[in-house]
């Protein structure tokens, strides 16, 4: 029979909550900065942009959350988590305080094709709080060690209202840089909002650069995705250069529990990152 596994993949590793940031006005989105309790766990947890991890709160359970920090953010992990009133784990997480200990298991799933993005123009389209792993990717690409590897970087990011925009401080910093183009939009602004108004698909149509030597990463709620595919295809992006990340209810995160499949594709194992081309080949279209 096969060799014994070195690690039991079901056992979470302890992490301390170092910092909690409330991200939005509705206060149902919080970012958690975590630090591994044990150095060897930190070393073993090597991840790539686009991967996710299973977050455990003792007594409540576990849930999958995309990694929002960049692999180059040494020593820490960041997650931005929405609390659902019906959600056991997310509610428990939001009740925790800095200094509390939770568990992390992973990293799980595949990642964005970072190598394939090198020497290309990269367009990032995000909607709502599905911006987390895209933020990881942006941080990674904008890092001084990496910026030269990528050509033009364009970011289009939208939220329902100004108060719902994530990572506001970082957005401002990116806006100040001259090696990245960033377009921020809200469905509907308020009296203080001086920026762009409009839905993400429409903004994509207006401002997205050409598809020449480019790859586009799109994450957002299903309805946004549905309306973003057509303009993106029209811009000439080929299906294999349109990348997205999917979500399904999960439990194991390692392709065993049978919960997260879309057709024969298990989101936790074969995904969550898929190209538009791969999605079209599924017998079930998400």
């Amino acid at each position, binding site marked *: 029979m096969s060799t014994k596994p070195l690690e039991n993949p*079901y056992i979470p590793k302890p992490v301390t909550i170092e910092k909690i940031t409330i991200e939005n006005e509705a206060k149902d989105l919080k970012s958690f900065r975590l630090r591994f309790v044990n150095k060897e766990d930190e070393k073993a947890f090597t991840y790539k942009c686009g991967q996710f991890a299973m977050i455990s709160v003792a007594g409540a359970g576990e849930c999958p959350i995309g990694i929002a920090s960049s692999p180059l953010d040494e020593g820490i992990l960041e997650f931005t988590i929405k609390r659902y009133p019906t959600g056991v784990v997310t509610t428990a997480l939001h009740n925790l305080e800095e200094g509390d200990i939770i568990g992390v298991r992973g990293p799980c799933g595949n990642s964005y094709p970072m190598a394939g993005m090198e020497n290309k123009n990269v367009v990032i389209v995000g909607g709502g709080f599905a911006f987390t792993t895209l933020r990881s990717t942006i941080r990674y690409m904008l890092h001084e060690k990496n910026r030269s590897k990528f050509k033009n970087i364009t970011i289009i990011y939208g939220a329902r209202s100004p108060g719902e925009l994530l990572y506001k401080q970082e957005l401002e910093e990116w806006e100040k840089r001259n090696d990245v183009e960033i377009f921020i939009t809200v469905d509907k602004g308020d009296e203080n909002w001086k920026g762009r108004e409009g839905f993400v698909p429409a903004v994509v149509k207006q401002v997205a650069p050409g598809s020449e030597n480019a790859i586009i990463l799109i994450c957002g709620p299903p309805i946004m995705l549905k309306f973003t595919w057509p303009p993106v295809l029209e811009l000439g992006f080929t299906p294999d250069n349109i990348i997205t990340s999917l979500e399904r209810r999960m439990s194991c995160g390692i392709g065993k529990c049978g919960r997260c499949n879309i057709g024969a594709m298990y989101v936790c194992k074969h995904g969550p990152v898929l190209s538009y081309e791969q999605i079209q080949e599924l017998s079930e279209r998400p």
Partner: protein
Amino acid sequence: MLKKADINKFIAAVMNNGYKVFGPVKQEDGVSLSELKTTDDISFDYFNFILPPKRHFFPWSELLYKYKDKTIHEAPLPEDKTILLGIRPCDARSFSFLDNVFIDDKAVDPYYQNRRDNTIVISLACNQPLPSCFCTSVGGTPAGKEGTDILAYDTGDSLFFEECSERGSSFLKLYSKFFSTPDQADVQAVKDFIAKAEKQVLSVNIKNAAEKLKEKFYDSVWDKLSFRCLSCGVCTFFCPTCYCFGLYDERDRRIRVHDACMYKGFTLEASGHNPRPTQSERMRQRIMHKFLYTVENFGKIFCVGCGRCVTACPVNMDIRENIVEVIG
């Protein structure tokens, strides 16, 4: 060959060597696969066990760890040396399917693997298929060897043992003193036995099911087909190849519990969105998973034709009819 009269001695010797033996035990409501306390408990008077044997590798519910004093205390991995005796070939085949899921290259399930590594499967060829059986239509036979270490044939007053894996042969060598060499007549008896049983198994035409199912995802047949279903999940709990589970925290511990795609809550997301909101999508998932997705992922139909789902379903959803109805 092992004389049935000698089986007690053989089993006693095995138990003496530290094995837990689970075999067919006569109980009030029929024969079930239970732990043998004494060697007298064995009965070969059964068709198949009501419950699927998968639970020996993958229990309904098991403890993964306890959380005490802010630390995780892992439950020790199962190490019992175990014999499963009298498993029917269809069910033994299910083990090799489950191996594909639980022991793959990317992530190995240590609980399953440990149990599997410490267990020797001795199956018993079928001499009396039931009206619900259809193993031969999904690639099995009443004397199949897949997933088993040793296959026994009941030839009347003796059992004919056939080695099916290396583990099986080295195990049998240790107990060779209980066995005699089969003669020509024994071998012939086994051949007749197989031929007779195979003929009795009902055959269902599901040729190219996977190919045809690919086109059926958005077909209206699922609504019609599934309307009778109560989403009770018995078909999946009882299926020897169904492996779905959920991880949960109960007070201070994490457990894993059987779960199944036939339940409404299986895919319900915290936002309230459910990609499989009615029994139609759930039935489609069950049939597609068994006859298409596993074929795409592992090259195998995840059904061994044991018929448990057919007999256990409270409204007689018959997967043999269902699949034919879908692929037309």
